[in-house]
Structure formats: C-alpha cells, structure tokens
C-alpha cells in the first residue's frame, strides 16, 4: 500500500476483468453502446494496457489475452477483406458490441431491481402477525380384520390353556404288585428283579415296568412276603419269597 505502483495495481484490480474495463471505456466514448466505434475502443484498450506496462505494473493474464485478441481484431478490421475468414472481423466486432450491450443491460437491470421498493427496506410487513394455525386432527384408521385378529390374539394370550398330555405307556404299581406277587410263588431262590418284568421291547415302558416292579417288591418286603438283596450300590437287585 505504501508504494505508488501498489496503488496503481489496486486501480487495475478495481475492474472486474477485461470486459468490465472495455465497457467502461466504451461508455466514456458514447452513452449508446450501439453507436460506439469498436476500432476506437480497441485503440483505447490497447493504450490503457500499454500505459500500465510502461508503469511496470503487474497486469493479469486475462487483460493481456484480451489485448492480444483486440490487436488481432484491429488488424483484421484494417486489412483488406478476406472472404475466407469466418467469422468475419465485422462479425467479431459486432459480437463484442453486443456483449458489451448485454453486460451494460444487466448492470442497469440490477441497479433498477435493487432500487425497487424492497421489503424490509422500503415497505414493511405486519410487525407482529397473530399467525394462522393449522389444527391437526387425527383420522384414526383400523379395519375389522385388525379388530378381530386383535381380539383373537388377546384371547389366545390370556385364556386358560388346556394341556392334553398324551397317555404314555406305563406299568402301574397295582399291575406290578400282582405280577411280582404271583411270580414269587414260583421262584423260590434269589432272582434278579429284571426277571419279573414282562417281555417288553419299548425301553420307555420297560423303565416304567422296572420302577413299578421295584416299588412292588419293596411293598411285598414290607408286608413280609418277600426278601431283597443287593451286594452294593447299583449292583443287581435280587428278590425271593420270604
């Protein structure tokens, strides 16, 4: 900021690019952009850049690109017409002119837009509106199936459950008592308790028969009708008539 060149650099930065600079130069030339001389505009731009260079300023690349293009346009406009060049230099000049008009038009439109009566600056909305309210009401949905299915579920969950236990093959104690008592009359000597069981292949029923027969033997021993013998725990159990 302290040196002169810095200040001038800032001046260059004040332009929003080469088109902005061109527009400023064009407007200095004529208010109606449709009447400007492109050739004169090119001269002015090139002179501006040349001045800046003379001051040894840093000039952004895009300004130099534009200068080169304008120098080309200038020479093309001054040279005798070459019909093979497309677009023609006149066409290019016209396009540049339209482009400047467009930018100018939008710049003015923006200024007019921003100057309108704007809410919060020129016109104001009600400061403290009561507000409108939407009261949400629930429209409850359920169908008949849901209803009866729910009742079914409640009933199924809470009704006393009746358990039907399948009858399992067992030998009752009475049955075992009769059988063991009857058999004891025939077997006089010590006999393993398994020998008192009926011929059964079903292991479940066999277990039941064994248990019942054991209890029956105990009962007969209690009544003094039988004697039991076992050498050690889990050893074979022997029964004989007392």
């Amino acid at each position, binding site marked *: 900021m302290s040196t002169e060149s810095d200040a001038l650099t800032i001046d260059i930065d004040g332009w929003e690019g080469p088109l902005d600079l061109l527009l400023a130069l064009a407007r200095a030339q004529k208010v109606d952009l449709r009447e400007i001389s492109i050739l004169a505009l090119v001269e002015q731009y090139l002179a501006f850049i040349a001045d800046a260079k003379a001051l040894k300023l840093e000039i952004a690349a895009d300004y130099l690109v534009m200068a080169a293009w304008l120098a080309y346009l200038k020479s093309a406009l001054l040279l005798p017409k070459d019909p093979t060049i497309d677009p023609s230099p006149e066409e290019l000049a016209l396009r540049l002119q339209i482009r400047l008009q467009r930018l100018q038009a939008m710049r003015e439109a923006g200024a007019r837009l921003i100057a309108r009566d704007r809410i919060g600056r020129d016109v104001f909305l009600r400061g403290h509106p009561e507000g409108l309210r*939407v009261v949400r009401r629930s429209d409850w949905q359920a169908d008949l199936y849901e209803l009866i299915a*729910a009742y079914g579920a409640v009933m199924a969950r809470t009704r006393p459950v009746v358990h039907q236990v399948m009858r399992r093959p067992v030998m009752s104690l009475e049955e075992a008592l009769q059988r063991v008592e009857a058999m004891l009359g025939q077997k006089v000597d010590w006999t393993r308790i398994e020998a008192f069981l009926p011929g059964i292949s079903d292991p479940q029923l066999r277990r039941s028969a064994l248990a019942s027969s054991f209890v029956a033997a105990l009962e007969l021993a209690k009544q003094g009708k039988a004697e039991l013998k076992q050498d050690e725990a889990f050893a074979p159990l022997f029964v004989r008539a007392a």
Partner: protein
Amino acid sequence: MAELDPAVRAVEAVLFAAEAPLTPDEIAAYVGPDVELKQALRLLREDYAGRGVELVERGGRWHFQTAADMAHFLRREREEPKRLSRAAVETLAIIAYQEPVSRAEIEAIRGVQISKGTLDVLMEAGWVRPAGRREGPGRPLLYATTQGFLTHFGLKTRRDLPGIDDLKAAGLLDPVEATLGDVELESVDESD
C-alpha cells in the same frame, strides 16, 4: 375508502409494521411531533370498526389486531390419517366383544395396564364412549362402543362380530406361545 391525510396514513403504517403495541409517544417518534396523534388514532379506530381488522388500545398502547369474531377463521383443521396402536386395537376389541367393561376388566383381560391415552384415542376416534358406572365397589366407569364404531367397521350390530368359535376356526385363536410351550415340554422330557 376515504382519502386519508398523509399523517394518518403514516400512523396507520407505523402501527401496522410495529412489532409490539405502541404508546402515542412512540408513534410520534416515527411520524414526527406535528401530527395530531389523538385525532389520527380516533379516526383510524373508527375507520377500522366493523372490518376484519381493528385498532385497539390497551393500557395506553395501540395496536392492530384481527377482529375477535374472526378468530375461528384463523385456524383450520387438517385430518391426518393415523393407524391405531396395537394396544388401542386390542382395547377396542375387548370393549366391542365384552361391553360394557371397566378399565380394570380390560386390563385383566389384556394382562397389561392400559394408559389413559389409549382410551382417549378411542373416544377421540368416536368409537368408544363412557357408558355409566357399574354398581358395586368403586363404582368403576364402564366403556361401550358407539354407532360410529359400527359404521366405521361396517357392522350392522355388535352381533355381526365373529364369535369365539369363528375366530378359532379362522386360526385367530392359535396361541402365539404354543410353539414355545412345546419346546419347554420336550426339554422336560429329555431331562427325565
């Protein structure tokens, strides 16, 4: 409308844009000291009398408000479809099948407590109504279904509800826990 004095227009605009009721002094700070404020306010109040908006004074402060009799226009209802919760459907089903029932009975049947909200929802939907009290200890409030209930569910009478046997036949009574029960019995067997 009558052509308004610029000063009155200014007072009108200031009161309209104000974020809170204003005292005459506060209004004067906006419109300037030369305005006949008392007169302007009286004029505006008369101007707005009978319209949808009125100018009112409360404790020395002035503000515009919508006319009191317009209040019902400032709200509108919007219906939002909502599905009943499972608890609500079950409660409704119990009331429908066993009405009139008390809350305690519903809870006994469901095996869980029901929240106050559940019955409220059913009453809001217009399907359940209080139906007197049961004579006896505590005189509990009873609930029953409404005509609206029958209409919504497409029933002529409550007798159109499928009976327990129908539910059973439709498989709707199959215990949900049945499978679990079997597993338990089996594991008991195995440990025999």
